[in-house]
């Protein structure tokens, strides 16, 4: 479980996160949604320790992130997996090498063992025929699946995904969303996903944090978000013509 208590973060005097408090539970897909510039990516980078928070507290289970030294943070990061928006695969390595990489760097397992674990994870994300391909030879959806495989190969306790289905067609996006949810539930991972895609909200939004201008404007689940009275949430959710049409049909 990850708990945030009154997190603030500023850049050059501009407050980007204004007192965010939230609990992200294990075994659930926790979504952070909001418009571009609302502070989603900054919050995710704070959770990863790539940005230092100005005030507030972050706990990963019982470990207070702010009180750890650099070594402690590196150790904690080994319990984290991250799926980047652009996949961030190592472009000089094949799919198999990308997935093997974290184990080669951080464990003492032998090469055969590492290879067999990596192949099993690649199979889990349905990419068994792409082992020897380079990232540049893969489609966007396949690259995302490799990124997911690399993120979960070390069996992380925490999985972070930044816009995991951006740039993907709706069908592939649903495949990626469902894959993340399945892996989250299978391994009881605390998964935090940044998204502004309403399809993802409908598919996998177990817990939703809605950010507006760096403030927590709403918190709930996919079942509640379509019936809330919160003006900011409604403005965001029903911004597209498709969602407006659905609302009209329902009312």
């Amino acid at each position, binding site marked *: 479980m990850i708990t945030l208590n009154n997190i603030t973060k500023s850049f050059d005097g501009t407050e980007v996160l204004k007192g965010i408090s939230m609990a992200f539970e294990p075994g659930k897909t926790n979504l952070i949604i909001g418009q571009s510039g609302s502070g989603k990516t900054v919050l995710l980078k704070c959770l990863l320790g790539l940005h230092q928070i100005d005030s507030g507290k972050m706990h990963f289970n019982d470990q207070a992130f702010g009180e750890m030294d650099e070594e402690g943070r590196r150790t904690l990061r080994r319990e984290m997996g991250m799926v980047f928006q652009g996949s961030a695969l190592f472009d000089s390595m094949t799919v198999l090498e990308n997935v093997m990489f974290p184990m080669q760097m951080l464990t003492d397992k032998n090469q055969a063992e590492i290879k067999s674990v990596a192949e099993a994870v690649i199979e889990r994300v349905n990419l068994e025929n792409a082992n020897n391909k380079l990232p540049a030879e893969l489609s966007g959806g396949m690259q995302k699946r490799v990124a997911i495989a690399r993120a979960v190969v070390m069996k992380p306790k925490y999985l*972070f995904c930044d816009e995991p289905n951006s740039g993907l067609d709706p069908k592939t996006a649903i495949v990626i969303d469902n894959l993340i949810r399945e892996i989250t539930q299978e391994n009881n991972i605390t998964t935090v996903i940044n998204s502004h895609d309403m399809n993802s909200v409908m598919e996998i939004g177990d817990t939703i944090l809605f950010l507006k201008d760096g403030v927590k404007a709403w918190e709930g689940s996919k079942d509640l978000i379509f019936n809330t009275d919160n003006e900011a949430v409604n403005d965001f959710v029903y911004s597209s013509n498709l969602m407006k049409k659905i609302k009209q049909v329902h009312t």
Partner: protein
Amino acid sequence: MLRLVFIKPTKGKVMRKLIFKDIQDLIIGSLGIVAFLSFFVGGVVSIQTALNIESPLIPKSLVGFATRQSVILEFAPTFMSIILAGKVGSFITSSIGTMRVTEQIDALEVMGINSVNYLVFPKIISMLLLPIVINFSMFLGILGGYAATIYGGLSSSADFIEGIQLDFRPYHVVYAFIKTLVFAMVLATIPSYHGYYMKGGALEVGKAATVAFVWTSVVIIVLNYFITQLLLA
């Protein structure tokens, strides 16, 4: 950044692989251009020296002597390092910069890997082989001078060989290797710094490579002055 290069090292087996890859990319990959430039510049130095000797009182062996001195003292260590700042330096900046832009460095950090050590340390170690490249450059520079002198009919083989043996001081070679090692550090670290800390997108990668080349060249020229003052004056 230099402190981060040496703390929290990457696993030995992985690091060995990275070092061999960087030796291939940075050192072995540069031998072709070094050979080509050294041979022809050595030739040009000897032609110009020969054509400027008008007085019959000046011995023809001066062509070999001047070629040797120019190549060993300045051309091979200093100007070859500046040429490599363009080739090796821009390769380092653009490869690390591209990793920054595509979030690959963030990916390393999130995995708990010291990305500075992983990316920069193997480059520093492989650049320690630069004196071998410079040695190769010295040899081919003098060979180029010899070929241009003999085939251009500017002097005899005996005169040229007498010239390259004339007043030879091994300390000059030591001096050249000392400054080459200093330049190797500059060639590995300044481009790495500009690549690692760059911000922006693909366009900025190109800009960072240019800035890195300019700074690397400036630092090499300034250090060359001080090292020469210190070791030869």
